[in-house]
């Protein structure tokens, strides 16, 4: 399987604490993206980091990328109850035959933030 894996599978923290989730992938990439999914809804894009970047910030989100280890982490600082959701990483996979690309998603981390 080409799928990435996320760690931990589930995480439960208190409001105000930081949440860190990790993603590992198997092939070389151009970009890595993180998405959030609220229960019963579609995924929402959070942040994209390019393969030549090591760290990126967006509000309370901080993403790091280590291409030598084929891994990325998402840190949510000062978490809120509204951050309760599943979080997925996605890497791109080019199709050289057709010149197109697809995305490979990790298995996700379920985050629960307790008020």
């Amino acid at each position, binding site marked *: 399987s080409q799928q990435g894996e996320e760690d931990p599978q589930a995480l439960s923290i208190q409001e105000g604490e930081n949440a860190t989730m990790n993603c590992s992938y198997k092939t070389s990439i151009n970009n890595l993206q993180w998405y959030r999914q609220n229960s*019963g809804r579609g*995924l929402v894009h959070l942040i994209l980091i390019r393969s030549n970047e090591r760290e990126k910030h967006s509000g309370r989100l901080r993403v790091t990328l280590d291409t030598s280890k084929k891994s990325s982490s998402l840190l949510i600082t000062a978490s809120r109850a509204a951050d309760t959701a599943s979080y997925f990483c996605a890497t791109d996979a080019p199709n050289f035959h057709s010149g*197109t690309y697809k995305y490979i998603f990790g298995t996700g981390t379920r985050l629960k933030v307790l008020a």
Partner: protein
Amino acid sequence: DVKVTQSSRYLVKRTGEKVFLECVQDMDHENMFWYRQDPGLGLRLIYFSYDVKMKEKGDIPEGYSVSREKKERFSLILESASTNQTSMYLCASTTGQFSNQPQHFGDGTRLSIL
């Protein structure tokens, strides 16, 4: 804002039926994708399309086909539904020929095959 609309949130069908799942996007995106999502397995790509009438198999195309007659619409077809196709189906779209664009998702169709 980009809107990706899936025709049904919940659908119940019987084994052996031909099932159509419809997806429409309103932002003139070239690329559209169908995924299924199962607990513990994340999202798995079924088919994708990068242009009208063009399609490519994803990782799990068996038992499915797709149709893209118009740029804004991408349909997923279960030729003869089986119980192992009970799942959440998600449609997504992106613009451009490079992978540095976010995917925009619909809210999903939860399909039950009885």
